[in-house]
């Protein structure tokens, strides 16, 4: 388990309601309403906690007829705490994680469910945004300007500015009106 995942899991477990959910699920798989009834909590509260438990890998869900049935992910709890502590974190790894966290934060701030809210003024942030949009382009594929505009317009109405920025930042190349993704 990575250090990030470990922290996420332990943070998730440090909540009494979530522990109660796991204690219930260890006996049998259940759906939200039944858990709510057993634990005397609102269904919305149970869903809220289950989402966090699922993100931390502590539970899994499967669809059965009309219900999402939740099960405890026993595998994740078999890791020994000692093994987790023994795992080393290198400086390079820490640096990578810091950058990743910053990147994630910028993306969360500027995107709303996949739509770019506004174009960042700061170059560092703008670059992150452009790289995120670049994920929609396939490597080694040739695009016409119209195709590029359509792809970018999915993120933001000002596709002209974003397209020009992607050229300027060497994310896309343009030759004879044909665009390509520049592979790093």
């Amino acid at each position: 388990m990575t250090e990030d995942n470990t922290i996420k899991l332990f943070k998730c477990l440090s909540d009494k309601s979530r522990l109660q959910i796991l204690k219930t699920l260890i006996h049998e798989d259940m759906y939200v309403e039944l858990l709510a009834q057993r634990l005397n909590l609102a269904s919305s509260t149970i869903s809220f906690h289950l989402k966090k438990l699922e993100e931390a890998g502590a539970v899994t869900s499967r669809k059965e007829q009309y219900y999402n049935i939740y099960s405890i992910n026993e595998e994740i709890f078999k890791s020994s705490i000692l093994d987790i502590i023994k795992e080393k974190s290198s400086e390079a790894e820490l640096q990578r994680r810091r950058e990743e966290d910053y990147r994630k934060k910028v993306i969360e701030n500027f995107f709303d469910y996949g739509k770019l809210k506004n174009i960042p003024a700061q170059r560092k942030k703008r670059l992150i945004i452009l790289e995120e949009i670049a994920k929609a382009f396939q490597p080694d594929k040739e695009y016409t300007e119209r195709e590029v505009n359509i792809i970018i317009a999915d993120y933001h109405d000002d596709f002209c500015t974003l397209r020009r920025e992607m050229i300027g930042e060497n994310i896309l190349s343009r030759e004879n009106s044909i665009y390509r993704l520049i592979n790093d």
Partner: protein
Amino acid sequence: MRELEEKYLIFIDGKIAEHNNMSEQYKADDRKDEADLEKIKVNIYEIFRTLFLSDIKQLEGKDLGQLEDINIYGGFLIRFDTIPANWKISLAKAIEHGDITKQVIEEHKLEVAKELKDKFLMMFDEYRR
């Protein structure tokens, strides 16, 4: 301040105290997320309390007759449409994208706004009788 306004503020203050208390209890019981949800509710009660105070201040000194017309409070009541409008959009987006955390938060906020509106209308009706 009219009796109705006083009673409504007492109701809001009671709800603020109740949910602050619940938040503290959850915190003491190591249920931080539920404590935070209660705090979100408290914030919404406080927002509407502030707006109500500001709106009734503007009515001060005005001759409002027998207080039989709900339109006197039209400025305050319209806030129950304008303020939660963005929360409704946010809730719809959260549902569409399966963002349960956001969904629960927006539902809590809307629930408080609805409760405050219903309570005000109920109190107004009682007061008029």
